[in-house]
């Protein structure tokens, strides 16, 4: 019996019991779709984390006031870090850039438009550290910081809300808590940033201006430090710690009054965790493939019993047990592969839907498709073998008598 004839016989057998075939395939369909969707979700999430790492800038350390890395870290009340600390850190040989931050909630106004947003006081090197680009105009300069100039750079969300007519904000005047600022630049769109901060919904001003006009204090909330390269990150972290302990005159019994986070390391941990989750989810999905396979075995056993007489007839006209085995094995294979293909289509559609809902790139790994299809074929052969074997070893005389 050639393969084409066997395929035709198998296909017809499936069509003869459409509902039953569909229900049997459902297990495989769900399994394959689940594997593909889960792997896609995992890879989408990983891609997003990786993208954020890249956007955050490379080789970054964040120095915050307050000890530890708990819920109270960087609490507003702790004012141990100053602008002078930032200047001292910038003098370290392995440090490329330093940008202190001071954030404040403000109400911005332009004409009759008002918008509640965050104003971030920082230095001229902030865009370089955070990979920000200006779409129109330019970021403020070190001179602006030195003389605490009343200049502002807007995120695109702020511009859109203060100037809803679509005109450019550059060169216009806005007021922040009743102080007049000249807009000198608008940033290019960034999308969501770390920790839920929307980098687009932000106004950037020189940190000296923020200290003098808004907080009236010398402290800063964060010091972003960019090391020369990834290899020197740990050294830089140790040097900063030593420097700050010395500057803050901490005795060896006292704890640090600051903490340093290696953001790249944290993001890499997140990425690793995401990968582990992906494996876990794919594993759970693979179990449902297994359950689908048992469903196939079940229905093939029913089919073999139902068609005992047919098996007897085929043997009487010259089918060898090998031919009978092949026929039922192919039926199981067609069942599981058809389920695999339908499941793959459902999985692709599902991944796309999830990607759109979650707002991350739809990553479809060809490997996961091949794996799912290959695995469903394997399931078909594995769980189809026992029923097929049962059919192939039946006694033709008894099979012909079977009612």
């Amino acid at each position, binding site marked *: *019996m050639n393969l084409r004839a066997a395929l035709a016989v198998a296909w017809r057998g499936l069509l003869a019991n459409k509902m039953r075939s569909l229900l049997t395939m459902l297990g495989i369909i769900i399994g394959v779709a689940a594997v593909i969707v889960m792997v896609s979700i995992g890879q989408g999430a990983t891609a997003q984390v990786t993208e954020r790492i890249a956007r955050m800038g490379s080789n970054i350390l964040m120095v915050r006031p307050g000890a530890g890395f708990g819920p109270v870290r960087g609490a507003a009340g702790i004012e141990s870090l100053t602008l002078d600390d930032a200047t001292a850190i910038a003098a370290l040989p392995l440090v490329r850039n330093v940008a202190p931050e001071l954030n404040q909630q403000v109400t911005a106004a332009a004409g009759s438009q008002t918008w509640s947003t965050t104003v971030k006081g920082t230095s001229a090197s902030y865009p370089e550290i955070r990979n920000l680009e200006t779409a129109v105009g330019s970021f403020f300069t070190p001179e602006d910081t030195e003389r605490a100039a009343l200049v502002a750079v807007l995120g695109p969300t702020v511009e859109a809300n203060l100037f809803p007519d679509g005109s450019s904000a550059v060169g216009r005047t806005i007021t922040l808590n009743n102080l007049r600022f000249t807009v000198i630049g608008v940033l290019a769109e960034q999308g969501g940033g770390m920790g839920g901060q929307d980098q687009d919904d932000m106004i950037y001003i020189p940190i000296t201006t923020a200290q003098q006009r808004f907080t009236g204090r010398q402290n800063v909330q964060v010091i972003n430090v960019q090391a020369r390269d990834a290899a020197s990150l740990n050294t830089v972290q140790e040097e900063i710690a030593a420097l700050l302990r010395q500057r803050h005159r901490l005795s060896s019994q006292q704890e640090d009054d600051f903490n340093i986070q290696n953001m790249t390391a944290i993001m890499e941990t997140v990425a690793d965790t995401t990968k582990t989750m992906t494996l876990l989810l794919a594993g759970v999905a693979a179990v449902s493939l297994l359950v689908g396979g048992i469903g196939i075995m079940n229905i093939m056993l029913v089919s073999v019993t139902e068609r005992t*007489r047919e098996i007897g007839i085929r043997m*009487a006209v010259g089918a*060898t047990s090998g031919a009978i085995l092949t026929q039922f094995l192919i039926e199981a294979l067609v069942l599981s592969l058809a389920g695999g293909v339908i499941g793959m289509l459902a999985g692709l559609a599902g991944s796309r839907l999830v990607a759109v809902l979650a707002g991350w790139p739809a990553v479809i790994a060809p490997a996961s498709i091949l794996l799912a299809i290959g695995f469903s074929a394997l399931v078909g052969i594995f769980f189809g073998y026992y029923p097929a074997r049962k059919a192939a070893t039946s006694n*033709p005389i008894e099979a012909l008598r079977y009612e």
Partner: protein
Amino acid sequence: MGAPVIQLQGVTRIYASGENRVHALRGIDLEIAAGEMVAVMGASGSGKSTLMHILGCLDKPTSGRYLLHGQDVTRLAPDQLAYIRNRQIGFVFQSFNLIGNMTAWENVALPLIYAGVPRREMQARALTALRQVGLEGRENHLPSQLSGGQQQRVAIARALVNDPAIILADEPTGALDTRTSVEVMAIFQRLHRERGLTVVIVTHEPDIAAYCRRLVRVRDGLIVADEVIEQPRQAEKELAAVPAGEGKG
């Protein structure tokens, strides 16, 4: 008559069912020559079905030899027996045994699938066989769309399609009414006469046995009589005498 096609020498068949041993055949010696038309008669339990299964290579004797065309088939492996069933033997059953979701021609072509015949040739040969049993135009009907007599004719076409030397028919008219039975016997007689086929018909009806030229009676696993039928009934003449349309085809 030609050389013997079938030679049974001291064939016994014992079924072991639990403690009991059932002696279905107790020592059968039988020779059937090429081109014979033989009826095997016996009551149920006489061993005639077991004899039929052994003749058809579906079962093996417990002892004794079965030579088919001079070849001892009792020593063959299952796959070799399948090959012999495919090439040398055509079965016709009481209950037709057609596959329900296959059309008439596909049922007829079934043995050709296992003979490795290309698909195009398969259909041509199936249609030829259907024409020989008078079923042209019905090749695409499903068995459920055919009458009992037509189904049995499809089964006969299936038995013929691979040009076997022997046709084995097990109660071929058992499920048919009288007129249809005569029609089926007419087909057997014609195939025997025109193609020189060896036909063995197992039956318990004397009326059906009377269409054959030789009668073998089996009782309690032994052959009790083996006689020549001098004046076999002629199915085609009987059909011509009875106006068509009285029975159902």
